[in-house]
């Protein structure tokens, strides 16, 4: 596969690994956070940590839009889907996420019509095919996905569809990063920045991290060599005493982002004053809702949404895992009471949750490969 296979080459990995090891100051520990859950997934799926020296640790961040959805919102979605003559459309990622009364799959088992879609646009097709039903799209995702939902609403408006709406749970990455940076529990040395979010928002929004918090950021692609190269670029910055925002993913990420995408978002949506994030609590201006002008497509306005706040089960430590304070295996219920088959929290069930990644891919005696150091 072009633009994919070249960035999975093992021999270049060894070279990068040697360079990274060469940049490590003796006796110093490095903690780098990959913000994006997609990066967490890649790291574990390809066994990337095998290439890192012992002194470099990757901390998994909260950039998993499924993981940060509070249980109450999952309950709200199921309540919406359970209304008469309603079809809910959702990405596959959400299907097993536990609400307080079960997941989408459990609701489906009880007769609720919830269908998986690949694209939000597929919901429009279903709406057209089922004029006597109401189709509600469960919209999730960071800024990577938000423009697609916005474009879908615009399309629905152009088509004058009257039986389609979205239940908007889009969140934004910068407040999450800021919450991490402000957290007293963590001392990080740098960030591996979210590559696909950046195709939309560009690289400028991360400048505050370098400027105000003194931590370097490298916006990274999603193939294992991309991530390894980004780690190398971060280590280079640290060793040279630089602190800036760099773009490793130049083949895809424009420095200024995608204006058309940002305009689509702004046209259809606005920031909520605050939104609850699982594990991080209430964060202001961190999530989107549909603008009044498009109220006809806002499921929260069209229908009764219970809106009950549901506390995480006491045993659940997803919050700390999301903040990177706990490694997955450090959670008391990891792998015993909480498994992919019986998930207590989102981190274990989201495809890019840190716990899922570690349980499904990384739960093994790890041998670090890096032996030869060439500076």
């Amino acid at each position: 596969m072009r633009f994919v296979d070249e960035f999975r080459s093992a021999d270049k990995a060894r070279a990068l690994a040697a360079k990274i090891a060469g940049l490590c100051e003796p006796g110093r520990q490095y903690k780098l956070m990959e913000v994006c859950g997609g990066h967490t997934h890649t790291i574990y799926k390809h066994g990337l940590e095998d290439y890192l020296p012992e002194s470099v640790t990757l901390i998994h961040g909260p950039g998993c839009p499924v993981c940060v959805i509070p249980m109450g919102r999952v309950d709200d979605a199921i309540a919406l889907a359970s209304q008469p003559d309603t079809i809910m459309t959702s990405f596959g990622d959400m299907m097993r996420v536990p609400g307080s009364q079960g997941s989408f799959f459990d609701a489906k088992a009880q007769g609720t019509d919830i269908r998986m879609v690949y694209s939000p646009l597929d919901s429009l097709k279903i709406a057209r095919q089922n004029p006597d039903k109401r189709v509600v799209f469960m919209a999730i995702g960071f800024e990577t996905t938000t423009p697609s939902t916005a474009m879908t609403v615009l399309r629905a408006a152009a088509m004058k569809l009257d039986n389609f709406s979205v239940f908007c749970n889009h969140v934004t990455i910068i407040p999450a990063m800021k919450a991490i940076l402000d957290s007293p529990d963590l001392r990080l040395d740098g960030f591996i920045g979210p590559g696909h979010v950046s195709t939309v928002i560009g690289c400028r929004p991360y400048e505050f991290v370098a400027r105000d918090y003194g931590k370097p950021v490298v916006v990274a692609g999603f193939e294992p060599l991309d991530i390894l190269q980004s780690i190398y670029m971060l280590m280079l910055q640290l060793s040279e005493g630089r602190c800036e925002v760099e773009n490793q993913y130049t083949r895809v990420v424009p420095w200024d982002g995608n204006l058309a995408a940002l305009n689509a978002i702004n046209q259809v949506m606005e920031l909520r004053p605050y939104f609850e994030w699982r594990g991080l609590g209430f964060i202001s201006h961190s999530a989107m809702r549909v603008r009044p002008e498009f109220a006809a497509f806002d499921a929260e306005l069209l229908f009764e949404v219970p809106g009950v706040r549901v506390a995480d089960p006491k045993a659940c430590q997803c919050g700390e895992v999301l903040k990177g304070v706990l490694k997955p295996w450090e959670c008391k219920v990891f792998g015993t009471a909480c498994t992919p088959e019986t998930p207590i929290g989102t981190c274990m069930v989201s495809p890019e949750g840190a716990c899922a990644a570690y349980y499904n891919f990384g739960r093994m005696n790890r041998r670090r490969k890096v032996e030869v150091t060439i500076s």
Partner: protein
Amino acid sequence: MSDQGTWVDQALREHEEHAQEEHAGSARPGGTSDREQQVLDRIDRARRRRPKVREERITMSHGAGGKATRTLVEAVFLDAFSNALLDPLEDAAQLHLNGGRVALTTDSYVVSPLFFPGGDIGDLAVNGTVNDLAVSGATPLYLSAGFILEEGFPVTQLQEIVASMQAAAQVAGVQVVTGDTKVVQRGKADGCYINTAGVGVVEHDMSLGVANARPGDAVIVSGPIGDHGVTIMLARGELDIEADITSDTAALNGLIADLLAATSGVRALRDATRGGVATILNEVATAADVGVLVNEDAIPVRTVVRGASELLGIDPMYVACEGRMVVVVDGGEADKALAALRSHPLGADAAIIGQITADPKGMVLLNTAFGGSRIVDLLVGDPLPRIC
């Protein structure tokens, strides 16, 4: 699913009781800290415990061939029916009848759509049943075919399906000797469900079974993986994806006969159906309490299957096949086995993908193409397309 609070508390209590019985594990050399290793050991013990079904209702996951299916089978079916013939949970039961060895298997086919590139539900019904017998070392002979038809189902379509079954039966050298027909009301049965049973004779001394795998054995796959599952996913039409891909449905008894004639070193054969190759590798690891080490680079996957998998975010290792098998064979006989497979049209792309190791017991490890390593566990349910 019952109130989440209750089952979570119950699960915690169970695990706490077990934890009190456990002693701390010892650290192993290399990379992983003591604390982490203790957690890994605790998890390993938790995984080996008696399974329980936590859900109140059956969900789609229970039919996917992954963890949920296995838990259901063990906690509900095995729990009720347990006996020496059933317990091995192989693809066919090995019976002793009138001094001879007979293999018996059963399957149900509920695929949707009924007709897809490369075949139809009839092909699957015959080939799937034949394969379950063949991988058990039996010569497939007789099939039963029970039809559950939906009111309103076009007779011409039924005739097409039945014609496919007869054609497949002839290729496989089996006969449909008994059957049944039921009709259910409109809205049930997705048009047509087929249930089969298959009977074959075992005419050699070999005993094949995943529990026979031992360190040093080679793991071979008979051809490119994931063709069938991707074909079905695309044929459903919901994803709006087109590709030149057809189901790999095929009767493997000829291929298996050639293999078993060429070498007596075969320990186990399994046809990779729902759950894909990854599920079989895990079954081997668990049944034989060995490690399975595979090399990602060695696993044959068609470009188009890879493309579809990448696009949807699923892993071809978990995608269903219907005409591929995994062979566990004595390491010293691996080349002979491979040659035998490759000289048959259905095994032309067979490849050695890995080996059985002593450790880590019960786990499947993958050397990734990138040069790293990771484990390959069972999925809970179907591989779900993801956007994240």
